[in-house]
């Protein structure tokens, strides 16, 4: 075993914590620390458990230890003309593979290529009993047993400590072009949906400050044909535009008010939330800066069949008590039973997602 393999140490720490009923706070790169609830627990550093284990481009599969820096993975893929198609946000240079999957965060390409969870093929994890378990694998089709590796995506480490993750990777598109045009929000949302119903090489859409942005990806002649049909102007420095949007580094995100992430049905109309808004993912994700109370934001989202996450609290404000949309009582109860099935002592990141989980 090489020096970067800390599987046994991590498992032993979890076993000790389970025996002593001592909560653990999983600590990877710390780049997503702002997201979710605060965990009162002993830090369990997992960032040192790192390294790409297996990458064969012909297989479209990459397996790496959870502590591997996301940047290292994306660099390795880029060298072979491939990519993580869910275009993960980093939110900091220290972002790791494990944290990216645990938070199930996806970038601009998500509406057209899939979310982080869609690319999970398998994982090794330590459950709350300190057992090292392996689910899924490195193959594209696998229906043996419940899909517990995909379940880890978005579980924020509350069901298991990720040790290794295998992801499906995809070829990078040959070319990309972003078009921009003036458009009001309502028409922009409708256009995004109309375009998505046609066989166009879409890879990202956004609306912000009266402008509609659409990114096309694929072979150059295909993009040229599609671009001619869509109209608008070519956006210079498009790569920076999309990465600023993904990393929350554009001017919009400097507003001191709380940042809300709304997940809405793609055709939902603009919501009156008293603050600036960015529409992404073909209408499915809306970023809103607003100071109105959480229950009102959630009521607006729920009224159209959506949900709302307090992604970042107001500048200098303490962490939110309930950043994620509360679950129905039936679902909450089921979540508690599932948590107990993986982590009977309740020691893995307790409360990171919801109180009592």
């Amino acid at each position, binding site marked *: 075993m090489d020096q970067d393999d800390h599987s046994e140490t991590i498992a032993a720490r979890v076993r000790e914590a389970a025996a002593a009923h001592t909560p653990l706070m999983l600590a990877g790169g710390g780049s997503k620390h702002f997201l979710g609830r605060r965990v009162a627990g002993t830090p369990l550093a997992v960032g040192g458990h790192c390294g790409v284990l297996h990458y064969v481009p012909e297989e479209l599969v990459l397996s790496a230890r959870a502590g591997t820096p996301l940047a290292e993975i994306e660099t390795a893929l880029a060298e072979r003309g491939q990519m993580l198609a869910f275009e993960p946000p980093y939110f900091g240079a220290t972002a790791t593979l494990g944290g990216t999957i645990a938070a199930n965060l996806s970038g601009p390409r998500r509406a057209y290529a899939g979310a982080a969870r869609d690319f999970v093929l398998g994982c090794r994890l330590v459950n709350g009993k300190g057992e090292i378990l392996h689910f899924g694998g490195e193959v594209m089709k696998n*229906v043996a047993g419940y899909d517990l590796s995909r379940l880890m995506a978005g579980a924020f480490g509350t069901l298991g400590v990720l040790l290794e993750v295998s992801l499906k990777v995809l070829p990078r598109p040959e070319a990309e072009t972003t078009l921009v045009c003036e458009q009001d929000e309502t028409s922009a949302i409708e256009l995004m949906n109309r375009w998505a119903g*046609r066989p166009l090489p879409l890879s990202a859409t956004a609306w912000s400050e009266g402008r509609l942005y659409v990114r096309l990806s694929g072979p150059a002649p295909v993009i040229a044909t599609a671009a001619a049909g869509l109209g608008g102007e070519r956006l210079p420095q498009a790569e920076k535009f999309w990465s600023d949007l993904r990393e929350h580094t554009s001017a919009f995100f400097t507003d001191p008010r709380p940042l809300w992430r709304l997940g809405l049905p793609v055709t939902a109309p603009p919501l009156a939330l008293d603050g600036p808004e960015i529409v992404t993912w073909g209408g499915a994700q809306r970023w809103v800066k607003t100071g109105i109370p959480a229950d009102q934001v959630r009521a607006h989202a729920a009224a159209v069949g959506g949900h709302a996450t307090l992604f970042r609290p107001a500048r200098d404000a303490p962490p939110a008590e309930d950043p994620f949309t509360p679950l129905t009582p039936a*679902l909450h109860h089921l979540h508690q039973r599932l948590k107990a099935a993986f982590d009977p002592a309740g020691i893995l990141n307790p409360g990171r997602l919801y109180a009592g989980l």
Partner: protein
Amino acid sequence: MSDARTTLLAELRAALPGDALLTCEEELRPYECDGLTAYRALPLAVVLPHTVGEVVSVLRLCRTHGVPVVARGAGTGLSGGALPHAGGMVLSLARFNRILEINPLARSARVEPGVRNLAISEAARPYGLYYAPDPSSQIACTIGGNVAENSGGVHCLKYGLTVHNVLALEALTIEGERLSLGGHAADAPGYDLLALLTGSEGLLAVVVEATLRLLPLPQCARVLLAAFDSVATAGNAVGAIIAAGVIPAGLEMMDRLAVEAAEDFVHAGYPRDAEAILLCELDGDEKEVAVALARVEEILKRAGASGLRVARDEAERQLFWKGRKAAFPAVGRLSPDYYCIDGTIPRSKLAEVLTRIAELSREHGLRVANVFHAGDGNLHPLILYDANTPDELVRAEALGAAIMELCIAAGGTITGEHGVGIEKINQMCVQFTPAELEQFHAVKRAFDPAGLLNPGKAVPTLARCAEYGRMHVHRGELRFPDLERY
């Protein structure tokens, strides 16, 4: 019959309309098995509810009386997932066959679980949309069953499995509690129960409604047929196509035995002198397809293809596919019996595993025809044998076991798309450790503490693993012989 069961039937009679409860043997007989007919059992009763309220009543009554419930769609599954529990209830969702809504702008379809897979694409076609997962039985199989099995098809490499194409589920727990999972809004809060339910083989909850993602129909599709003089070369060519950045809509492979059988059966125009052929379908914009086709031709030539043909028109494209889709019945004509394996391996191991399968075939003295979804690494080796020849069945089983173990050893899995059901339950003991199996059981208990939903399927008890053995599929007993199986 136990008192509990007598009481249950009386209460079901009171709770359901007269046509929703079947109890006499001749009515139960059609439900005794699914597409895997080697296993049969008569249930206590079959219920055919009309409404979700009636399903709730059935589940609650079964829960109260401790009677197992096996949910059933069209019964076309190949792993015995819908095999009744003797003395238990079969819950047929056949009457939930309405497409509730097609939303062309949001590109979604909201359907009841008993809607046939193909019916969804048919309903979406006027809007230029379709539902991508296309299991070979799509003309008959239902969406509830597709969700239970996480069904695939020919196009999964590019368009994903069922789990990638379901937006929301309405499901009932064994307690009759309704759960709304996922939604029209992306990334629903909480654990990804939508993913957990998909492929859970009816052990966790009963799906009563599904909302599915629809995709725009591609402008055009073209297929290329490549011949090779060894299976290893063909296997390496698959990797070469993907490494070059091309994701074909379908990438299928057949070896010489399968090619000859298909040619004899449907005259698809395959080269009989090839040791293996690849069918590579490319779809999209016409220009895009033309560019990709030229690239694939170049790659295949370099990879050692001995012959290349692009289907000249839609009729020839259909003919090329007809041969592939008829491969199972065609192979069935070569031998009285065959045993179908459903393993998946990493693509880079294709050549190695195929070479090893050929060696194993010689060692065991039985022919193996290879037909498979090469792009996904999903193998369907068909072991030919004659159950009437002494010891051939035993040798077929031994060979099957060796091939499954080969798949696991190659870093793969015992089932890519047919599910574990009852058929592969023993092989689960090989693929997973006792602690992993126990984790599956703990998840099951979180949903269904009494273990009443489809008990005895998908995940073996540790006691069963101790008695591990292997089973087989008898060709003569494959139901729905008119359905394509590939």
